[in-house]
C-alpha cells in the first residue's frame, strides 16, 4: 500500500510521464480511500488548467499591443538590414 507521500509523488509524476500499469493501480487504490490525496490531485490539475488559461487569455487579449517604441525600433532595424 502506498503512503500519501509516495502517492503524491506519483500523482505529480503522472503529469510528466506515463506511469507504469502497476503504479497506476497502486495510485488508484490509494485515491479511492484517501480524500487528501484526491484533493492534492485535483489541485495540481487546477493549477495546470489555470496556467493554460493564463496563456490563452494573454494570447487573445487584443488590448495587449506591442509598445510603439519597440515597433519603431524593429522598423529601423529592418530598414538597416534591407539596405
Amino acid at each position: 500500500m502506498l503512503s500519501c507521500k509516495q502517492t503524491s509523488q506519483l500523482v505529480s509524476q503522472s503529469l510528466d510521464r506515463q506511469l507504469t500499469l502497476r503504479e497506476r493501480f497502486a495510485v488508484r487504490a490509494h485515491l479511492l480511500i484517501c480524500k487528501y490525496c484526491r484533493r492534492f490531485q485535483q489541485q495540481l490539475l487546477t493549477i495546470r488548467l489555470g496556467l493554460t488559461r493564463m496563456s490563452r487569455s494573454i494570447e487573445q487579449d487584443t488590448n495587449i499591443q506591442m509598445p510603439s517604441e519597440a515597433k519603431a525600433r524593429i522598423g529601423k532595424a529592418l530598414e538597416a538590414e534591407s539596405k
Partner: protein
Amino acid sequence: MKKISVHDWLTEHSDYLYRFALARLRDPHLAEDVVQETFMAAIKSPTFAQQSAPRTWLTGILKHKIIDVMRKNIREVSATDLMHDEDGNMDEFFDEAGHWSDKPLAWDVPDDALQQKQFLAVLQTCMDKLPAKLAALFLMRDVHETDNEEICKELNITTTNAWVMLYRARMSIRKCLEINWLHA
C-alpha cells in the same frame, strides 16, 4: 519592394506575434526581442517574398526563437544550484509514516469570471515566489509543455531529478495558493 512588404507585415502582425510570445515567455522585454529576431530572420530568408500566409510563417519562426530563449534561460541555471536551492525534503508536509501532516484543503474551483481572475492573479504571484531556478523548470514543463527529455538534456540532469524538482515546485505553488487565495 522587399522593404515595403516587411513593413506592412510589421504593422499587420507584430501585435499578434507579441501576444503569442508574451503568453509563453511572460516577460515583455523578452517578448519584444523575440519578435524583433523573428522579423530579422524573416527578411533574411530567401523564401521571404514567396510567402502566401505570412502570419503562419512568421509564427513558425517565432516558435523557434521562443524555444531558443527558454533554452538560454534555463542553461544559465546550473543543475547543482537547482538541487541546492530547494534541498529541504517534504518533511513539512508529511509525518514519519508518510501521511499528510499538512492536509490538502478542499478547493472551490473558481467558476465565474471574477473568481477565475482572482485565482489566476494569485497563481501568478505564487509562480513569482518560486526560486527563479525552479520557476524556469516549471514554466518550461507546465506552460510550454516542453518534452521532459529535452528539459533534462538542457539542464544536464536526470529525469528522476527533474521529477523531484517539479514535484517540489508544484507542492510549493499549491501551498502558496492555499495560503493566499483560499484564506484570502
